[in-house]
């Protein structure tokens, strides 16, 4: 298998487009939530200004090697998740590095960022960061379980582990999407999606009204800027995986933007209505409601 060097600029271009889209989309969602609350909210370009400010801080405190590597792991998890799945189906320029078996790699990268952050936050030595990490890891583990079951069900259904093949099998009309051919798997995966987007009712980990901001308590200046870049990139990358597996993929950039926006709004619609769960309540919720759906999906396939 030879490596084509032209893929590197294409991958960087995809990364550039998706990071900008993520920064603007996050601000747009905040603005929609603000307008619903009868106020104006942040400007659309506020995320860029925050990033420039954080990169431009003159001093920073480090707590050791793992503290420094925490945001690096998190950002590499986001970048890896994006680059190893096909972003635009059928386009040679934007298929990135997807290959047969990249479904398992996508599952790995979804969890990798949280682990990196756990190690970094533990080294920071702040007790609030430690509490935030125990909450975050337990919640993400419980939320990952129905997603893994749904992924197995989809892989069994399409008899392949390559995301490109799964997207190819869903072309040719809306009724071919997995959401209509395998609804239990998609239901389990969407419930898990609510958990991993870290919005209410599952945002006890990162909410500023809880322990001061949880795992990123000690992170500041460039470290925080790296994590904010990841926070713009990682949800989009995860939604790209969801879109490819369950909603038919995207064959062009406008459809990509529209589908990502709509799937993101699913978590926002749920988020603005419900209050927060405690961690044990959310774990119990996943185990009672989402995991049986995933098990039914695997059994029925």
């Amino acid at each position: 298998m030879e490596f084509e060097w032209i893929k590197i600029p294409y991958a960087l271009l995809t990364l550039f487009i998706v990071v900008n889209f993520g920064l603007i989309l996050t601000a747009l969602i905040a603005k929609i939530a603000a307008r619903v609350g009868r106020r104006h909210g942040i400007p659309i370009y506020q995320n860029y200004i925050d990033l420039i400010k954080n990169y431009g801080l003159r001093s920073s405190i480090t707590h050791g090697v793992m503290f420094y590597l925490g945001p690096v792991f998190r950002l590499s998890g986001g970048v890896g998740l994006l680059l190893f799945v096909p972003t635009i189906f059928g386009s040679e320029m934007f298929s990135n590095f997807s290959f047969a078996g990249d479904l398992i790699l996508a599952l790995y990268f979804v969890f990798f960022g949280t682990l990196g952050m756990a190690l970094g936050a533990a080294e920071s030595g702040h007790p609030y960061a430690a509490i935030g990490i125990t909450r975050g890891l337990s919640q993400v583990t419980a939320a990952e379980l129905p997603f893994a079951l749904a992924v197995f069900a989809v892989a069994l259904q399409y008899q392949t582990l390559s995301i490109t093949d799964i997207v190819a099998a869903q072309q040719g009309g809306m009724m071919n999407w997995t959401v209509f051919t395998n609804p239990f798997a998609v239901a389990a995966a969407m419930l898990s999606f609510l958990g991993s987007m870290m919005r209410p009712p599952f945002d006890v980990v990162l909410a500023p009204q809880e322990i001061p901001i949880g795992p990123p308590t000690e992170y500041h200046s460039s470290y925080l800027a790296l994590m904010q870049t990841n926070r713009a990139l990682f949800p989009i990358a995860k939604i790209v995986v969801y879109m490819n597996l369950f909603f038919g993929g995207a064959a062009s950039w406008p459809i990509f933007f529209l589908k990502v926006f709509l799937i993101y709004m699913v978590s926002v619609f749920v988020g603005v209505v419900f209050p927060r769960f405690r961690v044990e309540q959310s774990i119990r919720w996943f185990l009672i409601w989402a995991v049986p759906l995933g098990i039914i999906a695997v059994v029925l396939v």
Partner: protein
Amino acid sequence: MKEELQKRIVKGPDGIEFEVEPMRDYFCEAPPTVMPAAYSKIVENLFNWARSESIWILGFGTGCGAIEMRPLMTPRFDAYRYGVQWRPTPRQANLFVISGYLSTKTLKRAIRAYEQMQNPKYVVGLGSCTINGGMYWDSYNTIKRLDQYLPVDLYITGCMPRPEALLQGFEDLKKVIKAGKAEGANDYAENFEWYKANQKQVIHDWDMPDYNW
């Protein structure tokens, strides 16, 4: 000083006894240094513009003026459209609003929070108590001039100023930052001994390191 901060002999988990002096061993003893601006003027102007448009306030209401900060988070006054956010931890904040009177007890905690913030950082004094002692001008327990203990960039007068006055104050602070004149952290590092002597004169139960990194 608290008992856990005294010098003592500790027995480790493997049975070896060693002496620990918490004030020296657990904290960094280096004084703050002056951090110069970026090497090129156009880069520093860009950074100052970004710092002014994205002010992150430390969520620490030190006095009665905090009641005027809270309405800014509500839809009526909405400080978020000016780029102002509240952060719960001093590591991520770059503006510290001393809202109202500052008792010596709060001054010790305010110093601890201020020194943990990263350079460049700004201090705004809210209300007349920070200027000349205000209503508590003859109290034994409050400080009368904030400028002697922390470097202040802007004062917002009033007792208490209305939230609209705070918003106007933030706009003036943005002008000060964009002009490059808000170098409070570097002033603090340059006149560190003077500030520290003033602080230790009023705080009698000092049990922190000299600079809380």
